């Protein structure tokens, strides 16, 4: 199956061995989209590498910027003003909403519900991307969160728009729950399909919604708070079933929590500087740093090594998409061809994030 296939979200190849329609063996192949982003970024300065992080997981460019910025700040010991931290949290949670919407929408695409759910997801995504455009000037490749703060202050109309959007999105999540969660065909296709036991998920270092859907309460926002996440009140929802349906329900629950964080952040957004002074040719002291954040798809990490020059000596990225795929074979064995597509969709990967 693949690399050119409508359900691989890019160019992913699965070598399937079938017995009739039942999957006997599965071998994932990737690398078709390799662009050498890590090496390219090592040739650039720390600031020049920010746009490359946009291109890792193009759906969640904001959280990619965020993780990279945190890594650089730890490396060079840069202070971030509180307003910038709040803006980062707002952007990060909006990105999570976008990602989970699309994840659910495309899952239904793969289930064969034509384009209807995904079109509705896209409609809501547009509203959030309008906000991104207001703040950063770009809708997808935002390049907004920079080491030291954010690229520009929020425009005046941003907050009123966001305040209006939060209840709207709450309604949207409730709408998805109402229309899709109880759908009998959806349940028949997803309950008990692609079961990932909790111990196997941890053994494969799977993170994010896929792990929490298997019943393990682990979220970097709580386990190792970065930025100002320890100041917010939110729960970490989990499911126990560990199947496709649990992953879908998990994403819905997380959207609710994101909206909670968003409304708290909007309330408390302080005035002040939006960035601290960072030289454009930043020369961090010799050393190394690792930063990880809870990206929508899982734990996103950046590992940077500096040798004191303006270019990073090593620029390494831990993509959640790639590592979450590691249990794909075990999840698919014994299921039908149609299930492979759905299980793959329920892990919610971006190929650009896998191949880098």
């Amino acid at each position, binding site marked *: 199956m693949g690399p050119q296939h409508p359900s691989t979200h890019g160019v992913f190849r699965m070598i399937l061995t079938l017995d009739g329609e039942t999957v006997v063996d599965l071998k994932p192949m990737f690398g078709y989209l390799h662009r050498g982003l890590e090496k390219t970024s090592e040739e650039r300065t720390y600031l020049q590498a920010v746009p490359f992080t946009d291109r890792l997981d193009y759906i969640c460019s904001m959280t990619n910027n965020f993780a990279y910025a945190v890594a650089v700040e730890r490396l060079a010991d840069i202070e971030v003003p509180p307003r910038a931290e709040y803006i980062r949290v707002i952007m990060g949670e909006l990105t999570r909403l976008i990602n989970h919407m699309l994840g659910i929408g495309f899952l239904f695409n793969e289930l064969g*519900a*034509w384009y209807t759910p995904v079109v*509705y997801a896209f409609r809501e995504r547009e509203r959030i991307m309008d906000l991104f455009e207001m703040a950063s000037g770009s809708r997808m490749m935002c390049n907004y969160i920079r080491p030291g703060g954010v690229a520009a202050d929020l425009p005046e109309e941003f907050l009123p728009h966001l305040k209006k959007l939060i209840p709207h999105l709450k309604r949207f999540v409730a709408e998805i729950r109402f229309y899709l969660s109880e759908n009998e065909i959806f349940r*028949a296709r997803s309950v008990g399909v692609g079961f990932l036991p909790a*111990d196997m998920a941890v053994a494969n270092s799977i993170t994010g919604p896929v792990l929490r859907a298997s019943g393990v309460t682990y979220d970097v926002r709580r386990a190792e708070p970065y930025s100002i996440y320890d100041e917010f009140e939110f729960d970490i929802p989990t*499911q126990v079933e560990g199947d496709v349906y649990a992953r879908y329900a998990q994403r819905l629950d997380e959207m609710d929590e994101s909206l909670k964080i968003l409304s708290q952040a909007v309330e408390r957004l302080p005035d002040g500087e939006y960035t601290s002074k960072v030289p454009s040719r930043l020369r961090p002291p010799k050393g190394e740093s690792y930063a990880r954040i809870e990206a929508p798809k899982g734990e996103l990490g950046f590992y940077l090594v500096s040798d004191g020059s303006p270019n990073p000596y090593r620029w390494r990225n831990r993509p959640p998409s790639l590592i979450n795929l590691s249990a794909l074979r075990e999840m698919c064995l014994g299921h039908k061809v149609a*299930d492979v597509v759905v299980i793959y969709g329920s892990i919610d990967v971006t190929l650009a994030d896998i191949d880098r």
Partner: protein
Amino acid sequence: MQILENLWIDIAQWIRGLFDSFLPQWAAQLVMDVLGILLLIVIGIVAVLAFTYMERKVIARVGDRIGPNRAGPLGIFQAIADAIKMLTKEDVTPTNADRWMFLAAPILIIIPAVLLYAVLPFGRGMVGVDVNIAVVFVVALGAIPILSMLMAGWASDNKYALLGAFRTVAQLLSYEIPMAIALLTVVLLAGTMSTVGIVGAQSSIPFILVTPAAFLVYFLAGLAELNRTPFDLLEADSEIVAGYFIEYSGMKFAMFFLAEFINFFMMAGMITTLFLGGWQWPILPSWLWFLIKTIAVIFVIMWIRDTVPRIRIDQMLSFAWKALVPVALANLFLVAFIAKLLEPGWLRTVAAFGSNIVLIGIALLLLGRASRRRKERAREAGEAAVKRYYASAESD
């Protein structure tokens, strides 16, 4: 009103008179037959053009979009633009294809589709041929496309096409059975196998109100025969890309497309004829009523397509054999008993309707229980795994 009612028949008789004036009787009859066949084919193609446009508009509106709006006012020439595009496309034959089978499949699929129109009553006195075994004719011809789909899938020499062809055989053959049983129920009530006779038998009350279970079974089996969602496993965009016709391009692809939509119209027409009282309803002319009812059925099918996910091959088969066939059989027995015991009339209708509702209720109850049990099993497996994980984490 009378003029409108008999519009098409009058036109036909006028043409007939025209030919009668200078041709011998048999030649005039021959010309009329050929004209009738041409007319049915043209209706088929025009219907396809209209329905592709309608389908795209309906999908768009359901998805909160606008849909085609570039070609002509409101995009009404979109279908024609598509047709021209199809005609000008390169005709590709895969290197390893079985050439003759590959060529024959699109032709073979369109013939039975068009043939079916012969027995469809479009209005009062408007039917190609009124054969007394029309229902058998429909079932028999409905099975032929399976062969050409299998040919297409096999000849394409493509893994997706082959998978699609296997699914075709499994699906279409299994759904023929509940469909035929549902048809039998209608035949039992109407006492005739002619489509004209069946419409006539519904003059007081349409069969959907007499035996809704048969209607449901026929409708669901019809969706499967048309390979529409939730039974569109044969083409399954997201799984096997396009199924059996993946390797076809240009006009050959258009043939499959045409056959699919001709069948679509035919199936909606059959549902109208068998269960919705055909062309009968007051005030408007009969052929208009037939069109309205058929288009309403088509709209419902499109609506289902846009909103419901697809089921899996094993679920599709078990649904056919474990749900539809038993319901159809039980319904056949029920209706046979009631038809034997009670004289035709209100009492019989109410008894049949009531027993059908009870039957549907029992079937839904059983299906719901199976679904809940599945959910519980999944939950138990998950809980066990979580417990296992935390136990091992503590011992470490």
